């Protein structure tokens, strides 16, 4: 197995001003927190958790401003940190169990542990590795077989084979992700209300809700079209189209 050299050369500590707002680059919120903590340029044992919380919340705020999609786990972490921040700032509640200081300490310990393992991984990769830095004999003659099973297979072969058999013979479950849709009822209600407020011919697209999700937009368009047909059938709306595939106009009848 060879390694991705580009990973190894990746600088471990990135500067605060070079932090991009690309959340895809992080291995989860803890990873993001650790990178932010590094920018404080002090030993992890001495970082200010309060400052770190501020950094994280500001980062998420910036991401939101740019309308970046933020995975739920980052938002959960943001909520938890906001809670921690308020606990740390409020007058001390002696009854609080666990104390905010303990919560902060836990976070710090977790960051230290993740950081330690990340460094350990980098140091492992940097060792003299077989096939990259040191090489075994290229053409060993091979020894005669002594007390060795005539048949070769290892544990990985075995469990991988079992996984394969099970996967082959069990019906595959396909989970259909529920796509956001606009129901016909919803569209009827919406279009009826909106044509009531407009006097002139209006393109059907104007009845669609503002959305960035193309799948939802398609659904809304389809449902609104069917809704317009239904309203026309009931004599509540007129529909006009100059030619096939030309823009479709709707107005109150």
């Amino acid at each position, binding site marked *: 197995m060879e390694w991705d050299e580009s990973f190894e050369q990746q600088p471990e500590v990135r500067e605060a001003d070079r932090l991009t707002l690309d959340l895809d680059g992080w291995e989860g919120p803890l990873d993001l927190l650790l990178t932010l903590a590094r920018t404080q340029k002090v030993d992890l044992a001495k970082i200010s958790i309060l400052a770190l919380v501020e950094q994280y919340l500001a980062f998420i705020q910036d991401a939101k401003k740019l309308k970046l999609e933020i995975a739920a786990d980052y938002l959960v972490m943001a909520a938890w940190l906001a809670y921690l921040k308020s606990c740390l700032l409020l007058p001390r509640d002696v009854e609080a169990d666990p104390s905010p200081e303990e919560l902060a300490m836990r976070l710090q310990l977790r960051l230290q542990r993740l950081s330690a393992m990340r460094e350990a991984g980098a140091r492992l990769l940097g060792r003299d590795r077989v096939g990259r830095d040191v090489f075994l004999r290229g053409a060993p003659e091979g020894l005669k077989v002594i007390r060795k099973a005539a048949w070769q*297979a290892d544990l990985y072969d075995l469990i991988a084979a079992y*996984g394969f058999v099970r*996967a082959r013979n069990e019906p595959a479950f396909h989970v259909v992700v529920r796509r956001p849709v606009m129901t016909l009822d919803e569209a009827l209600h919406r279009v009826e209300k909106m044509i009531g407020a407009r006097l002139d011919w209006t393109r059907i697209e104007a009845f669609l809700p503002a959305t960035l999700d193309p799948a939802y937009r398609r659904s809304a368009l389809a449902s609104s079209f069917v809704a317009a047909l239904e309203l026309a059938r009931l004599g509540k709306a007129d529909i006009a189209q100059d030619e096939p595939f030309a823009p479709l106009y709707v107005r109150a009848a």
Partner: protein
Amino acid sequence: MSRIPDHLRAVEATLFASTEPLSAAAIADYVGADVDVAAALAELQDHYAGRGVELVERGKAWHFQTAPDLASLLRPEREESRKLSRAAVETLAIIAYHEPVTRAEIEAIRGVQISKGTLDVLMEAGWVRPAGRREAPGRPLTFATTATFLQHFGLASRRDLPGIEDLKAAGLLDPIEAALEQLGIGAPGDGDELELETMSEDD
């Protein structure tokens, strides 16, 4: 320990790591044109003479080889250990996970018939044994794994085999779906059927 000159070390390592005999010119490509490869080869040959490994020249190409008088240590031609067939590994895995298990049950789980030779190979390897008859119509013979099996695969007990959940988490239950995806038979496109879905939901 005695540190030897770097050019000698380089020639030695190059010959050791090479998968085939190397000419002096080929060695120079690795160690640099400024090295007197012929002199280095002569020096190394002298150093290794009388050791367990010798540096020999065959038709202008050089390689290390085991001293001829020690050849009895080496692997005789074609007595290599053979790799277990895919069918055998699968059968062994099913026995290990389900023992005691009958042949019909193994076939049901594999979804493929097993040939007589497959079980024979596993028994010959000492990994599988007959484990009594099932009290069922026909009284079929059952099979189970042996202590040798556990030893060979480094398991303290059968309970140390990863469970289905572990396999799933490790991605070992995915090969089929992954294969389908590679063939491009993956998720349905998000084209026209979207409208159909939308409408049928409202009917």
